[in-house]
């Protein structure tokens, strides 16, 4: 696996918009080979020994941060967590200044989660370290999409020729954007559906098809992905109530039965049980929500390896 040909086409992983199909395949293949490490008793290989990774989290996110942290540690990188609360950020330090500080510390990779769309790209202009986007505003969340794709590929053996339905709050979902780019690049069709107030304008230009309603999107789908509802959206009047949302846009057994019998159910988590997905199907046989978490660590190991370790002989 090691050698010059494992390097990705992009210096950073800012999103899947610019990633090539080959990049995606390479990350997925690498992740698959790393997955075995997670199952070992001693989960540590020396692959990234001597490399340093900073997890720069401006937004709270236990699962993504932990996933990246473990990924780094399993590969023997030195990982440091930096969260905005209790840091110099609270004293008013700008992202640019934080970047300069990191630059001087000789960091190899920065994993950034930020509430501002474009923050990862901004950071990449100010540091020479490799930047990995762990979710920027409502823009992209590439490793989440990659772990979704890895989960599907493992179950189905391929990623092409599928109908993928992404459902719910598309407008505010970075996961949706990355998945649209990812799945369409791999040869699947992506349908989106949800409340009209949560549907971004001209999303079809990204390659997605806008379904008339939830049922049309799910009908015959191979992959059904529900998105998390941010409850504060309700206060902004983007949908009237959780009750109505779950009735009109929630996925239950009956609705899921419109999909192919072997369709997979995904959710980026954490799930609002009974709102986006009924408990019955969340814990049902089609749900791969828990497996997504494991894929997440493997994907992040692969990304770190390919960006900061893959070029080394």
């Amino acid at each position, binding site marked *: 696996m090691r050698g010059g040909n494992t390097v990705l086409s992009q210096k950073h992983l800012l999103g899947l*918009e610019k990633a090539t199909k080959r990049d995606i395949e390479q990350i997925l293949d690498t992740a698959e080979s790393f997955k075995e490490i997670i199952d070992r008793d001693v989960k540590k290989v020396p692959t990234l020994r001597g490399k340093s990774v900073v997890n720069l989290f401006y937004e709270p996110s236990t699962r993504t941060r932990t996933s990246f942290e473990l990924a780094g540690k399993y590969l023997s990188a030195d990982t440091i967590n930096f969260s905005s609360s209790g840091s110099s950020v609270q004293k008013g330090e*700008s*992202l*640019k200044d934080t970047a300069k500080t990191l630059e001087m510390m000789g960091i190899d990779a920065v994993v950034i989660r*930020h509430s*501002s*769309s*474009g*923050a990862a*790209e*901004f950071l990449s202009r100010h540091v020479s370290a490799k930047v990995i986007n762990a979710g*920027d*505003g*409502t*823009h*992209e969340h590439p490793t989440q999409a990659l772990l979704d794709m890895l989960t599907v590929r493992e179950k189905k053996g391929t990623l092409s020729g599928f109908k993928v339905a992404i459902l719910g709050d598309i407008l505010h979902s*970075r996961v949706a*954007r990355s998945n649209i780019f990812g799945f369409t690049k791999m040869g699947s069709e992506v349908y989106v559906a949800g409340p009209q107030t949560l549907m*971004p*304008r*001209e*999303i079809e*230009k*990204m390659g997605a098809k806008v379904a008339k309603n939830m049922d049309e999107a799910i009908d015959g789908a191979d992959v059904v992905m529900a998105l998390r509802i941010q409850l504060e959206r309700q206060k902004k009047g983007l949908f009237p109530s959780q009750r109505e949302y779950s009735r009109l846009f929630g996925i239950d057994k009956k609705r899921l039965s419109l999909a192919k019998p072997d369709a997979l159910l995904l959710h980026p988590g954490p799930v609002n049980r009974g709102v986006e997905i009924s408990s019955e199907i969340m814990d049902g046989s089609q749900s791969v929500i828990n497996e997504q978490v494991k894929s997440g660590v493997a994907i992040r190991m692969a990304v770190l390896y390919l960006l900061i370790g893959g070029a080394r002989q």
Partner: protein
Amino acid sequence: MKKILKGARVIDPNRKVDEVRDILVVDGSIAAMEKKINISGAQVIDLTGLILTPGLIDMHVHFREPGYEYKEDIETGSRSAAAGGFTTVACMPNTKPPVDNAMMVEYVKSRALKSGLVRVLPIGCVSKGLEGKEIAEMGDMVEAGAVAFSDDGRPVADSSLMRKALMYASMFDRVIIDHCEDPGLFEGGQVNEGYISTLLGLQGIPASAEETMVARNILLARETGTRVHIAHVSTKGSVELIRRAKAEGVKVTCEATPHHLTLTEEAVVGYDTNAKMNPPLRTKEDVEALLEGLKDGTIDVIASDHAPHSIDEKDVEFDKASFGIVGLETSLGLILNHIVGEGKLNLGQAIEKMTIGPARALGIDAGSLTIGKPADITVIDPDLEWTVDKNKFFSKGRNTPFHGWKLKGKAVLTMVGGKIVYADENISDDNINRAEILKASYK
């Protein structure tokens, strides 16, 4: 002191003049405009091959003083204006404190006078403290020299307040300039709502945020019979609304900026904060509608909305960046290249939008070459090729999306009241006393 400006192609759209003439300037005023003027004892400036127009007017600039001098002050703003070929600018009042009373109007005037470069006309606030609640003391401000009223930077959101303001301002024959934006529809917006906002995951600003307010202002202007000016029109819908209103005889004027005429929303791809403005850059279709509006007279004025910011306010995450770009030094070049050069307007029409157009919209006696009136004059070299270099701006602002653009055509000489306040390094006339200009610029 007598000066003869010799051999330029004089274009004065107001007087429908477009021919080679000599202009005699005596004691700061235009004394004669003839085919040939030869008198002894006059300083002769040879402008052969150049274009001479009435001094350009920009009716929408932000000079940030008082309160935000780190972005720009009246002197640096004036220098920037002179370098861009502008002899008169109207200054928006959203400073800190805002220009909402006579004393503040006097302050702006006195600072402008001290810098002694271009004519800086203060615009007063529509509402006290820019709060949008009560109308400001417009009468007092008019007496002190306010040329118009605006809460620019934000809309006059309360329709009742806008109605009262229009009626009250009309007593003094002053126009209200409105930044049209429905706050509810704007709601945290960053860029035009459309594919680009979806792609970048940025909160979109729908065209309706502007158009609903344009429509409201037109209705109020029609009802009250008073005049309203729509600042920085950016959408096709707004142009259509204004066109229809004008045809009905509603007293409405409007302006478009060089950036809305030359850039589309695509410019923000890559999260370039120098392309972040309010109203946002729109679509190709909107740009075409603006050009059509300029051509058919729906859009009266080209104004820069010169909005300087410090680097720390722009070199940040996109949603945290301030809105706006500097424009005084790129305005004319962009219009000559991308509007005139591409055949969207002829040169006379473009000059009209930057001289008599704004003068009429503001209701001021300027924008034309008149015997006996102050010699406010702009000389343009239509063939001068130059590259926009933000590091060479006279403005303190470096926030421009046009850095590195190659343009053809530039103001090379700016004269205010007969005094040369700017001479480009490329103008090679020995009779131009550069030391004097430098002294005037930096006193």
